[in-house]
């Protein structure tokens, strides 16, 4: 019952997001949809994804979208052609029907990856299966993922016309004394939460991505408040921090090749410690990359203004 209600809520929120004439309202409904999706992930017994969805899919994406919306020119209400409505409804419906048919026809799964995972879990160095998959068995994915994040950042930097980030990094936006005071009060709490999420990832839901997202949120709030380090220091820290996750991961991954093993084989004695070290660097890098993506976006508005 509750599942059906959640699915109906998802669909109606998605349709409202797409059909409401006001762009700001559409974004608010999109953020609401993210929160509802978080509940759905909890119902699907996936607390890790729920954490990531709440922090990344809803929080960071919402901030980025809202920040972009302020820069967009105000445009008229939706004007769509009749033929296009027809094609949109037709293809949407047929995709849904085809997917549903495929889902109901789903064949039995011949390969039991989950049993292999449970059998091999002791060798991975961590006791939480998702962290084991992300950082040991399928560490290749995670290595490439941090590479994709870096690529997005570099591409974003390439899109800039003029580059003078030194003075722009300390641009205060919200001169609100209450926000500043409470941020000073809660920043240690946010850092503590990020560290806890990172530490908890070894044996329960949590891990580098969620911790990185919390870290990025803390950085973004600091940036919006105008709390900043000295520009020179923060510039160097940013450059090093953005790269450290990928580089450390790559070094650890390829060091096993020196010993004649394949890429990404950890020595089983220190697998847990190595994973924690990589996760620490990843958290720091993910936090800084997401923060840089936000500031890059933010600066573009300033240039156009």
């Amino acid at each position, binding site marked *: 019952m509750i599942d059906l209600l959640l699915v109906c809520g998802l669909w109606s929120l998605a349709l409202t997001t797409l059909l409401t*004439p*006001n762009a*700001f309202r559409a974004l608010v409904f999109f953020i609401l949809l993210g929160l509802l999706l978080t509940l759905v992930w909890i119902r699907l017994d996936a607390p890790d994804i729920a954490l990531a969805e709440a922090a990344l899919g809803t929080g960071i994406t919402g901030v980025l979208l809202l920040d972009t919306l302020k820069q967009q020119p105000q445009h008229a209400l939706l004007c769509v052609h009749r033929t296009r409505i027809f094609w949109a409804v037709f293809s949407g419906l047929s995709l849904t029907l085809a997917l549903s048919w495929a889902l109901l026809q789903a064949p039995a799964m011949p390969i039991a990856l989950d049993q292999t995972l449970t059998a091999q879990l002791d060798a991975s160095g961590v006791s939480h299966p998702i962290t084991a998959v992300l950082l040991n068995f399928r560490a290749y994915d995670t290595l490439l993922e941090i590479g994709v994040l870096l690529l997005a950042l570099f591409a974003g930097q390439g899109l800039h016309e003029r580059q003078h980030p030194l003075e722009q990094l300390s641009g205060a936006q919200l001169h*609100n004394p209450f926000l500043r005071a*409470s941020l000073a009060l809660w920043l240690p709490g946010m850092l503590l939460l990020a560290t806890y999420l990172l530490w908890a990832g070894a044996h329960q839901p949590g891990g580098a991505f969620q911790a990185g997202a919390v870290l990025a949120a803390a950085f973004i709030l600091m940036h919006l408040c105008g709390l900043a380090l000295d520009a020179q220091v923060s510039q160097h820290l940013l450059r090093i921090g953005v790269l450290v996750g990928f580089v450390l991961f790559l070094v650890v991954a390829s060091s096993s090749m020196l010993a004649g093993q394949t890429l990404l084989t950890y020595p089983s004695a220190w697998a847990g410690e190595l994973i924690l070290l990589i996760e620490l660097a990843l958290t720091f890098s993910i936090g800084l990359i997401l923060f840089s993506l936000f500031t890059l976006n933010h600066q573009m508005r300033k240039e156009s203004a």
Partner: protein
Amino acid sequence: MESFLPTLLLTSLQGLLLISGGVLFVVGSIGLLRFPDTCSRVHALTKADNLGLGLIVLGLILGTNSLGVALKLLLIWLLVMFASTLSGHLVAWYACYHPAEKPLPQEPSDD
């Protein structure tokens, strides 16, 4: 029979707290939809929802047996109160200082 009455009392008290908390959330949402301007909307939302959340947390605490879960629920309550205070303040502050660009534009009347 000895333990029946306290259990019933506890369950009904819990139900009462949870239901009244839910009702307060509904009232807050009605206020959000019906009030005319940003400040009164924020007022309706923060006031009613904080009380509603408090009641729900109280009801849930009655249902748990472990101290750890109860403390976690209290922590959630405190954090949400803090967050809603801050966000409510920020929305109202923004609305006061930027009257030209309203955060919630007028919707079409036939909606």
